[in-house]
Every structure is written in C-alpha cells, then in structure tokens.
C-alpha cells in the first residue's frame, strides 16, 4: 500500500473523531475544539496529497495555510459569540440554548 493511503486513513479517522465530538458534546467550547480537530484532519489530507501526488506541486500545502488562517478567524468569532451568549444566558450547554423553542 502506498504511503499516501496511510496518511489519508489517519486523516479520515481524526475527522470522524471530530465529527463524533461535534455530535455528542454539550459544551459549546468543546464543540469548537472538535471542529478544530476536523479542520486539522483535512489539513493532514491536503498536505499528504500535495506531498505524494505528482502534479499538485505544493498547492495542497498552500491551501492548508489558508485553512489555518481561516480557522483562526473562525475560532475568534465563534468564541466571541459563545461569550456574548454566556453573558445573556449564563450557560454554555447547547441544550439550554432554547429561546426559539415554541
């Protein structure tokens, strides 16, 4: 089996762990952390493909840099929303954000 597939399998497993965390955790901050895990998994896949596939020539590496930048922006805004929400509701548990429930 080619080296690339090992790295891609690692990325898939990390992605699924992150997705599982997003589905099951209650704490919003942990959900954000699991989102970061998913983004990291995608980055591993991009860098691995860029490393082993002829013709990509570093584009995957470049894209992972863009993704890291956007992840930083995402985390800033996301946690600002969490803190603003916490100020109003005094909670970070997802199942207690139920104002819109009729």
């Amino acid at each position: 089996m080619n080296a690339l597939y090992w790295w891609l399998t690692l990325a898939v497993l990390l992605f699924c762990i992150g997705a599982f965390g997003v589905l099951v955790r209650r704490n919003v901050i942990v959900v954000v952390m699991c989102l970061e895990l998913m983004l990291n998994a995608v980055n591993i896949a991009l860098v691995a493909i860029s490393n082993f596939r002829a013709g990509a020539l570093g584009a995957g590496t470049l894209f992972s840099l863009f993704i890291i930048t956007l992840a930083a922006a995402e985390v800033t805004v996301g946690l600002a929303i969490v803190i603003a929400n916490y100020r109003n509701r005094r909670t970070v548990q997802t199942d207690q954000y139920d104002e819109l429930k009729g």
Partner: protein
Amino acid sequence: MPGGDFHPWLFFILAAWILICGLGVVAFKKVMYSAASMVACFLGVAFAYALLNAPLVAVVQILVYVGAISIVIIFAIMLTEVQDGGYDLFFNRQAVLAAPLAVAAAAVLTVVVVTADVGQIGDKALNPSVKGISLLLFKGYVFPFELVSLVLVAAMIGALVLARKEEEKS
C-alpha cells in the same frame, strides 16, 4: 508502509498519539482537560507536517494552533466555566446514535480513500521548499492572499463587536 526518510514505526506512533489525544478531546469530562488534550493533538499534527516535508506548515501550526487558538479557547473556558455545577452529563442522548454513525462513516470513508484513484502517486516526497511555496503564494495566489487578510480584519472587528459589553441604553 508510510514512506519517507523516517522509520515506518514513527508514523504509527504518531498516528496513535494524534488519535488518542483526539479521543481525549471528545471523552474528557472536564473542559480544561479536553483543551490540554487538544493542544497535545495539535502538537502531534505539527509533527506530522514535519514528516510530510512541510516545515513551514508545521511552524505555522505551532504558532497559530498551539500558540494562539489554544490560548483563545482556554480564555473562553476560564471566562465561561459554569460555577453552578451539577451538570455532569457530558454526552447527550445522541451519543447512542452518533457512535455507530461515526464508526460507519469512518469505515466508509477509509474504504473510499484507500480504493480511490488519486492519479499518479509515488513514494517520493514532492512538497516544495519554503521558497517554492512563497513563489506559488505570491505569484499565483496573490488575490486569495489579500482576500484572507480582509477576512481576518472582518473577523477581528466582528469579535470585538460581539464580545464587548453592551452600553447602557438611556
């Protein structure tokens, strides 16, 4: 076997490290332990980039993820940690459904990834040096680069506006 200039076992140790730390993020009951586990996972991922011949991405990973993002997340934990306590459930009811779903998704994706035809691949490491990446970035991708800086400014202002205290309305 994972190719490169390193012993193949290094890959498996690293993969186990990354996955166990990732599981720790999901499974730890205390949010602060989750955050510590996440930092360890990010360090492992940085090491993976180094093994994949992308030293620039490895350094950026340590700077941005291990340095900045973890600090922001730990700040958020400290600002919001619920003191009223008694909220012990850390999995919600979806865990029963989500666990088989995640395992099935992992299995399907692994099969797809391993059987996929990704074109010509060799065992040679092809990632360009830092010079090659910067040439690519500032020649072919200047517009996205500038766009990203705009996004960062927007995110910064947005975070400030969202997180600041509401002024007293008269």
